[in-house]
């Protein structure tokens, strides 16, 4: 087995022990990308020379007897809305690639480099992150490593594909309405959407200020926790980012789910999807010994309000550019941005006021429960190009309905670990492990328990189980 098919922790341990050099790991990753990426279209930029320089620096640090960091020599890549020094931050668009190259890396890249990780490049994404499919009109679709005729999910499609294919063990993405949790589900990997305001968004191209989050993907919960810990901390460039210090979670994983009050989300979260979505939740509940159900109040309305706010804020961000460069947008994105500029301000404010109401109700729910389980997506990965889906005998548009279970949760910024289940059907599907604000530790402890029980797994696509 290639070392790349193992975990980030395994790579870092081998590099730190001198069993393999960071340079050798980097060359293996570059070769794997060269062979695999033409079929999957996960990477839009491969920063080979930079990666070789970073790996050499890690090896030199080890040779000098100094600590190379907890992620020594671990390859990673980032959704191409992150600033990568020397590259235009394209954010999946045609327009942005005309921008001057970023002068500096975003802080999350700097922090991972500081922990010894090696940046391999930028990853494909839906244009300007207004997307749940992973398709891109300019760069072509990211393809699902478990079936390249299917979607990765989006908008962090390349992030999902690169990790599921074993090109890198870690990737970063963004999640506004589900863009980490949806690709995690469709590609069968772990993802973490931290609490809104936990990680700084500085040095990334925005979409919806009210809901934008950055976060990691990985194939193990320990890796997810390690990379999350390495990225924590305030940054003056993001006014929404907490000024609190770092609250590490990796050491807490071993505490497991013991003593936690866990429930399955009922009502809204038990209808509107394929049976596999609920089987996955039930499998997790069974493994955790959970039979309790809780109602998330007004979840459908929360999704509706998230939809309105996303439409208006996204439109406002792009209005000037839409005015002059409309034909350079993906038409699927453009027409929603134009429409969003026409929505009354009073509707937007009502949606924001409802957000406060919903947040208060959810804090009440969390008085009696520590963690909530819910489906991540209503379906497994659809076929590329698919426009509609049939659920419960009703044909509906695919794009807006992929996020029905993720949108009410990111609406108020709750932390979520997305855990993948394989083997329930031909394609994997994910479950959201949802925790109260600022309690990523609880979501990750439950995710770790599900992984330890063998319920949640993230095998490299095509690799022996």
């Amino acid at each position, binding site marked *: 087995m290639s070392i790349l098919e193992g975990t980030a922790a395994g790579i870092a341990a081998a590099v730190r022990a001198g069993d393999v050099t960071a340079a050798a790991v980097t060359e293996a990753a570059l070769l794997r990308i060269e062979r695999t990426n033409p079929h999957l279209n996960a990477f839009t930029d491969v920063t080979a020379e930079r990666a070789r320089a970073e790996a050499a620096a890690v090896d030199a640090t080890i040779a000098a007897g100094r600590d190379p960091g907890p992620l020594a020599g671990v390859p990673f890549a980032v959704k191409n809305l992150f600033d990568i020094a020397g590259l235009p931050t394209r954010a999946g668009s045609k327009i942005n690639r005309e921008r001057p190259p970023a002068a500096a890396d975003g802080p999350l890249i700097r922090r991972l480099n500081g922990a010894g990780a090696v940046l391999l490049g930028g990853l494909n994404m839906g244009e300007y992150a207004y997307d749940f499919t992973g398709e891109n009109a300019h760069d072509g679709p990211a393809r699902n490593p478990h079936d390249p005729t299917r979607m990765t999910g989006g908008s962090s499609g390349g992030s999902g594909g690169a990790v599921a294919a074993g090109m890198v063990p870690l990737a970063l993405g963004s999640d506004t309405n589900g863009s980490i949790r949806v690709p995690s589900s469709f590609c069968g990997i772990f993802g973490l959407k931290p609490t809104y305001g936990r990680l700084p968004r500085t040095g990334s191209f925005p979409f919806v200020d009210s809901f934008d989050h950055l976060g990691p993907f990985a194939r193990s919960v320990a890796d997810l926790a390690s990379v999350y810990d390495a990225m924590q901390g305030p940054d003056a460039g993001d006014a929404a980012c907490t000024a609190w210090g770092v609250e590490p979670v990796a050491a807490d994983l071993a505490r497991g789910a013991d003593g936690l009050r866990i429930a399955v989300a009922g009502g809204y979260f038990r209808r509107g999807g394929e049976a596999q979505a609920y089987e996955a939740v039930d499998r997790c509940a069974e493994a955790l010994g959970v039979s309790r159900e809780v109602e998330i109040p007004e979840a459908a309305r929360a999704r*509706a309000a998230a939809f*309105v706010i996303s*439409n208006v804020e996204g439109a406002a961000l792009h*209005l000037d550019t839409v005015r002059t460069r409309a034909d350079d947008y993906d038409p699927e994105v*453009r027409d929603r941005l*134009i429409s969003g500029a026409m929505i009354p301000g009073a509707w937007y*404010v009502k949606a924001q006021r409802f957000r*406060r109401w919903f947040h208060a109700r959810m804090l009440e729910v969390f008085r009696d429960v520590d963690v909530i389980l819910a489906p991540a997506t209503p379906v497994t990965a659809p076929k590329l190009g698919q426009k509609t889906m049939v659920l419960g005998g009703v044909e509906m548009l695919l794009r807006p309905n992929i996020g029905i279970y993720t949108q009410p949760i990111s609406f108020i910024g709750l932390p979520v670990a997305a855990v993948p289940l394989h083997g329930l059907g031909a394609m994997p599907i994910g479950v959201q492990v949802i925790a109260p604000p600022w309690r990523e530790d609880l979501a990750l402890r439950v995710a770790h328990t599900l992984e330890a029980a063998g319920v949640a797994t993230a095998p490299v696509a095509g690799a022996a189980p």
Partner: protein
Amino acid sequence: MSAEEFDAEAVLAGAAAMLDLTITAEQRPGVLMHLANTRRVAQAVLDFPLPPETENGPVFRS
């Protein structure tokens, strides 16, 4: 006006004028479709009664 009675054509014409935005023939069907869809989705939010003191409450820290 209910979501069913919503006249997307009229909204598009008025809002485009307000925004000083020219809507091309290629953009028009998609924009009309999305306007009607957002009108329908927003109804759930608009229908929900909230007391005046329920405010978004942006917080600005030192």
